[in-house]
């Protein structure tokens, strides 16, 4: 079974340069259907309005953080099984534990490389 790279991926970061970097890295591994949101609230609206196979989100955003977005996603009956990867500079144990308890699918610490991104996506989508 091969990974469905035609799925819609939502990337969430309040820093546009980072969105651009992740979008380009995803494109290089053939994920071309990528949408962007610049905070948790906008992401949640897009998730509820559309159909996404993967969410890749930063943590440190205002007014809704990535952790709050994750909690909202897991509390939503339609969205709760959507794979969710956190990409963040928050590297304290308490952050990783909080994200895991909230139901994160995987956790990438910044700065990261393309290999790590590809590896975590494959693991999350069940094709490691």
């Amino acid at each position: 079974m091969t990974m469905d790279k035609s799925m819609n991926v939502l990337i969430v970061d309040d820093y546009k340069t980072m969105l651009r970097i992740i979008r380009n890295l995803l494109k290089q591994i053939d994920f071309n259907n990528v949408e962007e949101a610049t905070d948790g609230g906008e992401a949640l609206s897009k998730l509820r309005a559309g159909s996404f196979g993967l969410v890749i989100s930063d943590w440190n955003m205002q007014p809704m953080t990535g952790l709050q977005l994750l909690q909202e996603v897991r509390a939503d009956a339609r969205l709760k099984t959507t794979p969710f990867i956190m990409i963040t500079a928050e590297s304290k144990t308490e952050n990783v534990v909080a994200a895991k308890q909230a139901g994160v699918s995987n956790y990438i610490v910044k700065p990261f490389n393309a290999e790590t991104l590809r590896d975590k996506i494959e693991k999350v989508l069940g094709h490691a």
Partner: protein
Amino acid sequence: MPDTPLAGEAALRARLDRIRTRHPDPAPEAVAEVVRAVLATLEGDLTATETALLGEVAELGRTIAAAKAEIAALRVQDINVNHIPSATDELDAIVAHTAEATESILETCETLDRVAGKLAVETQRELSAQLQDATTRIYEACSFQDITGQRITKVVATLKTIEAKVAHIIAAFGDRRRDAESGPLPEEPPVEELLHGPQLPANAMDQTDIDKLLASFD
């Protein structure tokens, strides 16, 4: 009928309270002057101990006045008027310039990616792969901008806290005319729980540590 000692003490306290209300923040030099005047009028009526004590109080007033003059001479207000605003402007400029440069680098990379894509459909797949590999490394490196931006934001927040505290020190020890303007020390902005920003490399968990921690939940 004379006041009992307790009644006398209560009357004295009440009087002191009234004076404090009328003069909530007396200047030390004014207190020293009053003490000197009182000493002059009471000369001969006081015991040696009382005279020495009042002399100490007058000296204390002079010491406080001298300390205030020294603080004023240090021009502490320059920290807030010049140094901190200048430092935060410089840091903002660093963020703006590096963001601009990063955007330009990314734009160039995207052009290279498009060229690599065209090579891929022709015969030069190996060259295409080399080009794409190079652009991947550049994309990865460009994420420095995000990390440095977050670190600089933390430094700016620290500088702003210092600025507020220096303003309060100046108001308390420097120009008395600013007292009314300064008001109470502003509350520090609440730190959002679990938002620490990037850690210094020596203190931070790397991806391997995080992977192990996540695996421990399975």
